[in-house]
C-alpha cells in the first residue's frame, strides 16, 4: 500500500503567559511526532485527554503552524506550500472537529451548511444540493431536515451534519476528532459502517482520533498511542491490542470498564498512578517515567531510542522487553486504584 500522508518530526509548543503578560514558559503540546498514513488505511490515535491529539490534527491542516517538522501529502510538503496549491490539497483533507458546533454555521440551513463548501469549490448549485442531500441521508438524517436550522437539531443530529459536511467534498483523507463520540450506539454503528464503505469505494484514508478503545480497535489498521505530546507506541492494531509493550499502553488498555450489569467497577477502577504531569515542564527523557511502575534512572535520559520490536511495531521504551511476563500480565502493580 502507498503512503498518502507522511508526518516527520512535527512539534508544537504554546507559550504560556502569567499575570501581566510575563512569559511562564511553554506547553509542549506535540513533540517530535512522526507517522505515516497508508492509502485506504485507518490510523487510530489514542491517549489521555490533553495529550495533544487535537493539536496534532490541527497542525496537519495548518490551522496552526507547527514549530518544526514536515507533513508530506503524496510527497509534497504541506507546510511549505502556499496559495492555490495549498488550498487544492486542503480540500482533499477534511476534518470533523471535536466540537461540531464550532464548524456549523447557525445562520444557514442544514442543506446549505453541507452544500456550501461544494459551491465555493465551483460545483453548480443544483449538483451541490443533490450531493448534500445524498450525504445527509447517508449519515442517517431524513431529507426533510435539509431545510431546518442547526439550533433545532439534537446533539447527535448536529454531529452528523458535521460529518456529512466533511464527506461531501469526497476527500482523500478524513481526520475525525472524536467524530462519533456524541452519537448513540446505533447511529454510531451506522456512521462507522459508512466510513468503512467509503474507504473501500472512494479510497478514503482515515485518521481516527477517539477515546473509545473498542471503537478504535474496530476501525483501525494501525494505532498510535500518545502521552503528553509524544508517541509512546505505534503499530498494527493487532500488535497494540494483543501485544502492547509500552507500560502506558498497557495501563490504558487495562482501564477499560467491563460491561457487567450489577457490578460497579468504579471503586476498583484502575487508574494510572499519579497525576498527569503539567505539560508546562514535561519530564525529561521518557515523559511517562514519573508515573511508570518500572522506571529506572536511565529513563530520564534525553536520548532514549524508539525500538522496533516487531515489523512496524515501535515502542518508545527501553524496558520494552523487561520480563514480558510482569509487563503484559496486567499485574495489579502496573496501575493503582484511585
Amino acid at each position, binding site marked *: 500500500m502507498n503512503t498518502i500522508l507522511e508526518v516527520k518530526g512535527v512539534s508544537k509548543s504554546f507559550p504560556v503567559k502569567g499575570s501581566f503578560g510575563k512569559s511562564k514558559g511553554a506547553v509542549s503540546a506535540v513533540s517530535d511526532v512522526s507517522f505515516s498514513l497508508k492509502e485506504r488505511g485507518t490510523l487510530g490515535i489514542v491517549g489521555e485527554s490533553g495529550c495533544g491529539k487535537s493539536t496534532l490534527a490541527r497542525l496537519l491542516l495548518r490551522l496552526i503552524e507547527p514549530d518544526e517538522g514536515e507533513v508530506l501529502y503524496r510527497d509534497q510538503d504541506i507546510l511549505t506550500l502556499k496559495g492555490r496549491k495549498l488550498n487544492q490539497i486542503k480540500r482533499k483533507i477534511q476534518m470533523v472537529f471535536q466540537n461540531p458546533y464550532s464548524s456549523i454555521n447557525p445562520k444557514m440551513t442544514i442543506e446549505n451548511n453541507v452544500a456550501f463548501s461544494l459551491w465555493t469549490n465551483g460545483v453548480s448549485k443544483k449538483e451541490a444540493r443533490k450531493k448534500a442531500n445524498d450525504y445527509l441521508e447517508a449519515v442517517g438524517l431524513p431529507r*426533510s431536515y435539509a431545510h431546518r436550522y442547526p439550533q433545532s437539531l439534537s*446533539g447527535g443530529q448536529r454531529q452528523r451534519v458535521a460529518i456529512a459536511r466533511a464527506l461531501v467534498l469526497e476527500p482523500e483523507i478524513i481526520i475525525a476528532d472524536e467524530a462519533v463520540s*456524541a452519537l448513540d*450506539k*446505533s447511529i454510531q454503528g451506522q456512521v462507522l459502517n459508512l466510513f468503512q464503505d467509503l474507504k473501500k469505494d472512494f479510497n478514503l484514508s482515515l485518521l481516527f482520533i477517539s477515546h473509545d478503545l473498542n471503537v478504535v480497535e474496530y476501525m483501525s489498521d494501525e494505532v498510535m498511542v500518545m502521552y503528553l505530546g509524544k508517541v509512546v507506541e505505534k503499530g498494527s492494531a493487532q500488535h497494540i491490542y494483543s501485544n502492547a509493550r509500552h507500560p502506558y499502553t498497557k495501563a490504558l488498555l487495562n*482501564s477499560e470498564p467491563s460491561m457487567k450489569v450489577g457490578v460497579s467497577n468504579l471503586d476498583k477502577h484502575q487508574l494510572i498512578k499519579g497525576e498527569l504531569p503539567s505539560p508546562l515542564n514535561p519530564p525529561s527523557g521518557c515523559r511517562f517515567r514519573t508515573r511508570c511502575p518500572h522506571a529506572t534512572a536511565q529513563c530520564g535520559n534525553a536520548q532514549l531510542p524508539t525500538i522496533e520490536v516487531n515489523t512496524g511495531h515501535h515502542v518508545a521504551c527501553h524496558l520494552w522487553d523487561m520480563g514480558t511476563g510482569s509487563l503484559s500480565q496486567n499485574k495489579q502493580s502496573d496501575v493503582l486504584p484511585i
Partner: protein
Amino acid sequence: MSEVLQIKDLVTKFSTKKGMVPAVRGVNLSVERGKTLVIIGESGSGKSVTLRSILGLSPQGTEITGSIKFQGDELLVKNEKQIQKIRGNKIAMVFQNSLSAFDPLYRVGKQVEETIKAHRKISRKEAKSIVIDLFREVGIPSPEERRRVYPHEMSGGMRQRAVIAMALACNPDILLADEPTTALDVTIQAQILNLFKKIQKEHGMSIILVTHDIGVAIEMADQIAVMYAGKIVEYGEARQVLSEPSHPYTQALMASTPQKEMSGKIVTIPGQPPLITNMPEGCAFSDRCPYAESACTKASPELDLLTEQHRVACFMQDKMSKEA
C-alpha cells in the same frame, strides 16, 4: 416522600413551519434524593429537550404543558426571575454542547468564580480557592495555572471537566447532566463519575444523566428511562432494565454496542425514527420493530407494569416472551 423532581405528562412543542410539533410527548418520571436516573435513547428522541424544559431554557414560542415539580414546587408557573434563582444554584446543568459553554473572551477560572459569586455571598479569594479545589477534583492537572487559561487553550476534555466543575460549584440539589463524559477517556470518566457519587453521598445530590454509553448507565443508574420518539418506552430499576431489556428498541440498542474484538459490520437498527412533524398513530417504533403486528400501528402503547419496578410500553410482550 423523598422525590426531588417529579415530572408529569410533560409535552414540549416547538413552533415550526408545519405548526406546533411535539418533541416530547407525555413524559412521566421522578428522581429521589441522592439517586440517579439515567436516560438513554435514540438520537433525537427528546432527551435534551426534556432537560431543557426543566430549566425553562426552551427557545421562544415553545409550548410546555404538564407539570414539573421541584421539591414540591411547580416550576412551570415560575417567571424567568424566579427560575434564574434556582438555575445554576439548586438545579445545575451540564449541557451537551459544553465545549461552547465558556465565553471565549474570559479566562476559564474567572468564569467559574463569577458563577459562584452570582449565587453565594463570598469574597473573590474564597471563590478562587473553591475553583482551584473543584478543578483538582474533576482532574484538571495543575489547577492553579489552568484557572488562568482561556477556553481555546484547554483541550476538549479539559474544557468539559471545567464545565462540570462549574455545574458542581454551588452544591446543587439536582444535577442535570447531558452526556457529561462524552469526550473523556475512561480513566477521567471514572474519576468524574466517582466524584458525582461522592457528592451524592455527602450532600444527597440527585442526578439525571443522559448518556448513550451503556457502560456509564451500568455504573451510575438507580433508575433507567429509555426514550424513543419523544416518549419513555421503558422505565424502571436499573438492574432489571439493563439485564432484561424488554422493549424491542431497548434490546436493539443494547445489541448495537461495538464490543471488544468485533469484526465485520456493526449491527444497527434498520430504518429511521419517525419525524416529529409526522408521528404515527400507533407505536412509534412499529415500522422498525421485528415483532410488530397490526395492533401496533393502531394505538400507541402506554407504560405497563412488567414487574413492580419495571415498566414497558409495548403490546407484544406476551408474544416476545413466548418466542424467547
